């Protein structure tokens, strides 16, 4: 197990495998998203209260979930990188930040487009929306923090610590709707016990979320490969790899 893990986090191994996994993930992601789009926009019935506007859930909830999942993943990678000194984990955390920021932005945008017709407002400073906005700021802060260091090792350490501190925002986002009076309603799917959505409306949501996660996996792997090359440019494996690709051998 330990040996397997060490092998996996070794940069050349990760670099090589990442390409194959990225392609598989991307294929599965596109397939799931297309089926979920059809299910959500065509097959699912309109909501008893919200009519067709409820369909925004099929893009809003997956982006919201991914904004938090990506952060948890980034923080997890930072933790591993700090404690066990795996350089590849720093590379993964680096590339996740802008991806997570895009999902957070999508969550806020689609939320706003849902809030206007249903609640009657584009934006309110309630605890759920504010904490999600804070998540976006944390992502941007992380990116800015990295850019402010010249030296890679220092940037890695500072960014990893920052990412770990930012984790406190995740439970705040999730529980905000229970801890405080908010305009935003409670969780539909992640509730323990019976989800508050019927199956014919629920399956496209589940499939879309799976599709988003696979997509996240694919693009994270793709971007990680570039980041690894750049970080490991002085190593033998990168040198050989570049030479082969240039036809110098």
């Amino acid at each position, binding site marked *: 197990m330990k040996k397997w893990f060490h092998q996996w986090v070794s940069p050349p191994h990760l670099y090589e495998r990442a390409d194959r996994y990225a392609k598989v993930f*991307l294929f599965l992601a596109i397939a799931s*998203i297309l089926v979920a*789009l059809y299910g959500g*926009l*065509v097959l699912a019935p*309109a909501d008893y209260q919200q*009519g*067709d*506007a409820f*369909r*925004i859930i*099929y*893009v*809003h909830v997956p*982006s919201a979930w991914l904004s938090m999942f990506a952060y948890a993943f980034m923080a997890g990678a930072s933790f591993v990188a700090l404690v066990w000194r795996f350089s590849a984990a720093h590379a993964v955390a680096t*590339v996740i930040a*802008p*991806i997570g920021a*895009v*999902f957070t*932005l*999508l969550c806020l*945008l*689609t939320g706003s*487009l*849902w809030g*206007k*017709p249903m609640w009657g407002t584009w934006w309110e400073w309630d605890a759920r929306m504010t904490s999600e906005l804070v998540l976006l700021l944390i992502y941007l802060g992380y990116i800015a923090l990295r850019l402010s260091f010249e030296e890679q090792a220092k940037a890695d350490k500072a960014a990893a610590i920052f990412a770990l501190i930012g984790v406190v925002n995740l439970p705040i986002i999730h529980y905000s709707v229970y801890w405080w009076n908010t305009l935003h309603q409670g969780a539909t799917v992640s509730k323990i016990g019976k989800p508050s959505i019927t199956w014919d409306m629920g399956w496209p949501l589940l499939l879309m979320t799976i599709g988003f996660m696979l*997509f996240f996996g694919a*693009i*994270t792997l*793709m*971007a990680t*490969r*570039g*980041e690894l*090359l*750049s970080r490991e*440019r002085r190593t033998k494996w*990168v*040198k050989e790899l*570049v*030479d082969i*690709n*240039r036809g110098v051998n």
Partner: protein
Amino acid sequence: MQEFFSMGGYAFYVWSSFGFSIAGLIYLYLASKSSFKKKFNEVSIWQIRENKRVDK
């Protein structure tokens, strides 16, 4: 068909949400792909310079 596109009067909100989301995913894909290519080229150029420097 007309009914499908009108989304019960919520066409603007529904279609722009889906539009933004799809655009966001496509952007992420293109950005990740091009960042790999960019890094690869950077490293290649750096490597050529290094080789020249070592040869001298």
